């Protein structure tokens, strides 16, 4: 059984915004029934140019439905420019994370959003024909490049988890490897904004930030925080003292601790509370 978060289950069992808007401002159709998942997404703007309504229809597994539901919730009230900045990682984070093998569901949500925005700006509903790398699942070179860049993927298996490319006959594995090599070398040539962070360095920086920036503020209110583990971008912490029994500690963790860690350590960190 997949290890879905409660939030994924909630958005699957009680999906928000199912349906289709008549006369939408932007519309997109991504995926196909043969691939195993597909998404039709429509949105409408209000008079101030903010997204008033967003609706989806999904064929796919629980996480595909949950990702589409989450995406439509996230973008309501955003301008088109703001919505264009939503990444697949944002969608996954909103759901409290997705199993690695299911990350392609969040990518599908982001693709639909992006395409619907392009449609709003005048592009056709279906993206124009592009160079297909994975014939089995119809994944284009552009999609693969983008997933590699945005999620810093380094192996063919990761690319498959995020885009499905290479998950069928596997004939395209050498091409995917070439794309990875090319993208990685480009990324290392332009290290400016986001140097790669080793795990040890990441954990150290998290420790330091907790010690320097976060603990003093919490202790001021009689609370404390302890780092339990770091798994990928998930920072597992336990709260102590007043924080442990505080009603607002969820808010504190998200709005203060996570925000600080994202600002000072790594922009994709997610703070999760564990009992330890």
């Amino acid at each position, binding site marked *: 059984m*997949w290890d879905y978060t409660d939030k994924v*289950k909630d958005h*699957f*069992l009680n*999906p928000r915004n*199912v349906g289709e808007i008549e006369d939408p401002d932007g519309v997109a*159709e991504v995926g196909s*029934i*043969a691939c*195993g*998942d*597909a*998404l*039709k997404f429509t949105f409408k703007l209000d008079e101030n140019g903010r997204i008033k309504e967003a609706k989806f*229809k*999904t*064929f*796919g*597994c*629980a*996480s*595909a*439905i949950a990702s589409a539901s989450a995406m439509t919730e996230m973008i309501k009230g955003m301008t088109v420019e703001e919505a264009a900045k939503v990444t697949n990682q944002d969608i996954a984070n909103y759901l409290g994370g997705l199993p690695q*093998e299911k990350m392609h569901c969040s990518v599908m949500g982001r693709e639909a959003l992006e395409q619907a925005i392009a449609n709003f700006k005048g592009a056709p509903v279906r993206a124009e024909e592009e160079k297909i790398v994975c014939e*089995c*699942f119809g994944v284009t070179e552009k999609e693969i490049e983008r997933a590699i860049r945005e999620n810093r993927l380094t192996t063919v298996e990761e690319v*498959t988890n995020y885009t*499905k490319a290479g*998950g*069928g006959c596997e004939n395209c594995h050498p091409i995917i490897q070439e794309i990875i090599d090319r993208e990685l070398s480009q990324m290392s040539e332009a290290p400016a904004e986001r140097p790669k962070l080793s795990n040890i360095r990441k954990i150290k920086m998290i420790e330091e930030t907790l010690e320097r920036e976060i603990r003093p503020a919490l202790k001021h209110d009689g609370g404390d925080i302890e780092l339990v583990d770091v798994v990928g971008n998930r920072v597992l912490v336990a709260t102590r003292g007043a924080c442990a029994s505080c009603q607002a500690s969820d808010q504190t963790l998200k709005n203060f601790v996570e925000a600080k860690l994202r600002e000072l350590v790594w922009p994709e960190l997610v703070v999760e509370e564990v009992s330890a």
Partner: protein
Amino acid sequence: MKPVYLDNNATTQVAPEVLEAMLPYFCQLYGNPSSMHSFGGQVMQQVRKAREQLAALLGASPQEIIFTSCGTESDNAAIRSALASSPDKKHIVTSRVEHPAVRALCAHLATQGYRVTELPVDGEGRLDMQQYRRALTTDTAIVSLMWANNETGVIFPIEKAAQMARERRILFHTDAVQAVGKIPINLADTPIDMLSLSGHKLHAPKGIGVLYVRKGTKFSPFLVGGHQERGRRGGTEATSSIIGLGVAAELAQKKMDIENTFVKGLRDRLENTILNTVANTKVNGDRENRLPNTTNISFEFVEGEGILLMMDEFGICASSGSACTSGSLQPSHVLRAMGIPFTMAHGSIRFSLSVYNTDEEMDFVIEKLPPIIDTLRNMSPYWKTGAQLCREA
């Protein structure tokens, strides 16, 4: 919530009679059957009895029964032994719909200098016996074909296939994990050389299996160690599990009729009602030659994982051949081998019943399932199109 357990091809409940028979062999009668003292010796008596019970179920003689740890071990032991006993032959014949225990092993052996022929199946999951005949060569060391398919329940004509192998002096192994206890098997009347079965599919515990090896068949052990199982499988006997499996075999023999009347009746009612009440559904596999407890139904335009998780909310347990549930991105290899279109394969659900299921449970599923399919179809971008297509057709 008591589960409505319709996933018996995955594993089964241990029968209360089986558990009861096993319990004394943990804390009281824990002796080693190989010991010289009578404390161990009395356990040996019970292991012998279990061997007789298994032999009776299969129509075999007790010395043809080797206890193993599971179906996978039995499959591995059988195929590797066949290859070891005819080292000059390098060809294996199997099918595209085998369980991974055979399929993955053959794929591995293909990298070790063996040639593997995977026989295709038709849209109903049936073998083409002409093609099978042509696949058998003088270089073929072993044929390994499953008796009944775990996903669809489709039964292969194993006795006939074994006969054709025998005529060419080729060893024949069958993975009968799903067939044993559900359809009558009498190995004395067949030319089958080796057969695998697994305890936990017939109400014995997990971690116990059997490999039947016909008397006179050359055998080379898979687990080399002590003298247990007459030197054919080293390792101290899992006494309590073996004794439990013996009781399970006896129960299975007694309940074979119930499988083919009561259980089959439940399955047929479930299947027919679903087909009649839910549009765009289809049974996968040959409905004639099929296990009495299994049905594999495709629900078009929806995805299996969603169906499973929504049924799970009501405690209904089943499984799916969809890609999303397998961890891979493609639907089950069995449905693909049958050429089931992806649109159908993604929405396939397998219900597998046992003698412990009831009429009330079928009513419950029949009540809960159609609204689940409706909910998911209303969410699906393909559903409307599909319904329109149907009306047009």
